[in-house]
């Protein structure tokens, strides 16, 4: 177990890719433990469904398993995985959109402005244990989740990559094959839509 952990920490990306290309099973285990959290966050941010995001990321790893020999290391492994995850999420959503329509979620009354401006929330006191503040934080989180759900797909993907991965506009542009200026405007519109949904 310890040996595996050490190997997991020591192996560099190039080495990992070479081992993956040789089809070594333990290299795939390392790949999964190393990247699953990041990919799951992206997938959850886009699908906003826990089970869907797990399914999507499982499929991502299967795709990587099948296609690793085509990976030429022009970009980093993380970039490649991120790209596959985003595409899978979008395909997944398209597939399900045909069967179901999104259910309408109304925002709770005390939704936006006050909570977002409250300096006690997510400000200096990140580890606040005041039940009132914790409740308000939860409320804001839920409302924001509903607001994100209402975002058009293109805006949501950009917002997720920016918020979770902290990617620069250039990196987001490369991931989505769009222009840097498009990233800038989509991100701005995403924020504007979210603020409007939250009643700000």
């Amino acid at each position, binding site marked *: 177990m310890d040996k595996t952990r050490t190997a997991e920490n020591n192996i560099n990306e190039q080495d990992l890719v070479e081992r993956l290309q040789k089809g070594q099973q333990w290299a795939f285990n390392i790949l*999964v433990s190393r990247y699953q959290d990041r990919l799951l966050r992206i997938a959850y941010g886009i699908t906003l469904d826990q089970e869907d995001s797990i399914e999507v990321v*499982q499929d991502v*790893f299967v795709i990587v398993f099948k296609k690793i020999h085509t990976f030429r290391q022009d970009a980093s492994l993380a970039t490649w995985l991120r790209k596959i995850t985003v595409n899978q999420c979008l395909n997944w959503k398209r597939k399900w959109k045909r069967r179901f329509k999104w259910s309408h979620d109304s925002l709770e009354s005390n939704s936006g402005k006050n909570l977002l401006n409250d300096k006690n929330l997510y400000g200096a006191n990140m580890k606040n244990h005041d039940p009132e503040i914790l409740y308000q934080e939860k409320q804001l989180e839920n409302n924001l989740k509903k607001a994100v759900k209402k975002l058009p797909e293109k805006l949501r993907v950009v917002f997720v990559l920016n918020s979770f991965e902290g990617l*620069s506009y250039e990196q987001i542009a490369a991931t989505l094959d769009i222009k840097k200026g498009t990233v800038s405007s989509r991100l701005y519109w995403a*924020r504007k839509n979210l603020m409007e949904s939250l009643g700000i």
Partner: protein
Amino acid sequence: MKTKCSKYTSEEISRFVDNELFEDQYKTLAQHIEQCPHCSELSNQYKTLSTVFNNHVHEKENLKIDKALLEQKFDRVMQNHEKIPWGNIFGFSKKYILVKLTSIAMISLISLFILQKALFTPTGPSAIVKYVDTDYSSVMIIETQKEQHTIIWFNET
């Protein structure tokens, strides 16, 4: 779109939050934000949106891959791939497969054409020396290619 402050647009504040302005623009806007409550508020709201959403996702403790299920999927893929990986034989990837196949077909055709000429062309006469054709018979005098023998060909009709 302008903010309540007329000096900067919301899009500029958005780019400022993401550190995507040129250095001098960034410095100027940073100084402005210290004094302008509207731009400062908007900038904080933009930052908080990302923080809250990030926090929401980080709290999802059950967001984990089922490794056993994933291994089953890998095994299934392996079973399917145990068929000969035609795609990779001789480093022949499936990319541009049509172009590659067309090239091979063209090369084969040209080779066949050249070979056919070299191997199967009959070593016939180099020249017909004389040819006579009447109502009753035909006579042809031919000289062979290598040995230069003379052949007299006669045909009675």
